[in-house]
């Protein structure tokens, strides 16, 4: 806490933080920032796996359901799941190429999103497909996982390319 001259009867004049766009009505710029301390909590082993070139899903310890995107409890019966290794090769269940996006990803467009499917795994995995022209992507296309060398501990640490590249 800074020492203040509390007997001054004038509020300091400051100029920061006021950008005025319009006067009638008064329209101002208001900037807001947050720093989050975000824990991946029970999903941490998935992200740690990516850093090691492993792709991990979940298997229910009770009913045996398998999940292509990890979840620590089964969506079918509520029991805890255990980690399982997913194949690095899979198929495209569906896809799209985004030419626009949310602000954070605008400068990465165009990019292609795919849902990866594996035989015997009940659900899918969302990822990016790299190196295939939008017009050449197809449902059913075989793809394989690649991992970033410099892990960022984000789901984009893994991405997919055509299986025969």
């Amino acid at each position, binding site marked *: 806490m800074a020492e203040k001259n509390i007997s001054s009867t004038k509020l300091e004049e400051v100029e920061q933080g006021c950008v005025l766009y319009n006067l009638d009505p008064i329209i101002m710029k208001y900037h807001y920032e947050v720093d989050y301390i975000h824990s991946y909590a029970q999903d941490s082993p998935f992200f740690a796996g990516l850093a090691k070139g492993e792709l991990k899903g979940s298997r229910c310890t009770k009913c045996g359901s398998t999940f292509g995107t990890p979840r620590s409890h089964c969506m079918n019966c509520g029991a805890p799941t255990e980690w399982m290794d997913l194949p690095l090769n899979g198929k495209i269940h569906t896809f799209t190429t985004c030419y626009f996006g*949310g602000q954070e990803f605008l400068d990465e467009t165009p990019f292609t999103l795919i*849902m990866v499917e594996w035989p015997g795994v009940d659900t899918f995995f969302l990822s990016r497909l790299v190196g295939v022209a939008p017009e050449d992507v197809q449902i059913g296309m075989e793809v394989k996982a690649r991992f970033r060398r410099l892990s960022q501990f984000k789901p984009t640490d893994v991405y997919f390319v055509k299986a025969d590249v």
Partner: protein
Amino acid sequence: MRPVYMVSGGITKFSKASPNKDFRYMVKESFDSAMADVPDLTLDRIDGSVASYFSDHFTRQLMAGIMVHDYLGLTPKPSRRIESGGATGGMCFQSAWEAIASGRMDVVAAFGFETMSHVNTWKGNEFIALASDTNFDYPVGGFYTGYYAMMVKRHMHEFGTTVEQLAAVSVKNHKNAMHNPYAQFPAELTIQDVLNSEMVSDPLKRLDICVMSDGAATAILASEEMAYKLTDKPIRITGVGTGTDAMRLADRPSREVILLPHENPEDYKNLKYPGVHSFRGGRVAAKEAYKMAKIENPLEELDFVELHDAFTSSEIQTYEDLGLCKYGDGGKFVESGAADLNGKVPVNPSGGLLACGHPVGATGLMQSVFAFWQLQGNVSKHFGGDGALQLKNPKRGLIHSHAGTGTYITVSIMERGF
């Protein structure tokens, strides 16, 4: 179950930005217009309110719900806020229904708003994308249009749905809106116009997608006794239903189709359901609402539908979820003209989200207001004398509200009570 009625409704004209009126003032405008339609309804007769808005981020204000309740002069009466993503408006409507059906309140104001103009469109898309799993989905693409694009790609693959069929939805809805003075974006378009519009996320183009809006809407619900005291044209809410699905598209399971009374298991022998091609939550919501409203065959028993067409693809998928046609036949359904203003069951006679705009928290309530005016038979009066969108003597309508990739979906059935 205590019967619940809608007795009035009001909306503001949705617009890209509303710098002269903040969210409180916008709701007040829609509220005052609803109040003005029922002269006997004075402020002291309202028992409480339910507030609907999607996101603290858009509003740059937490607890904005109470600020509106306060601005309307409703303190110290009960209020609460409902949030359910894009389905927030429809859920607010059902929460007001529950407040009355439970016997706790007799007259409830359900109001909703969103002011999406405070950030640019791409930041707005980012906010909306923050409503997808921020561990697994947001960082990969962070774009809801992309998620819907993947869903319809699979729909096209499974069923042969075409981009021309998607475009037909856009043409129909924008055209209906030509006669709706509240619509933000009425237009006479051709299939080709839609196909030629800028690609956003393959196969969805600019004209397949609704825009962001500022706007507000109010629906006033009442118990049977109060409804008939307040108006001679009350509209009864005969069914409410809600369904949900997994947040992550990747988590959607493959099971058997959940059947409606008029359907057969043989219709869907080899269909893995819902996968990513259909909205299971929409089917569950419809099933609950139909059961309550005693609807056996929706196509025959509904006179019109106002549904959540944030994307042209969603409208086609929703025909199927609602049982207006078989799963897979949605594309052909719109192509056939069945959903046209003069079709078998007009869908989005108002112009829908595509043409009216989509100020999230207001949208589901806007649908209730349009449906209410249809059923009261006074569209012309509310549309400045233009009655082109008034259906002939409609008895029963359906409203449908939907959150991101079908995570929350509500269906409510409204019927003439006079």
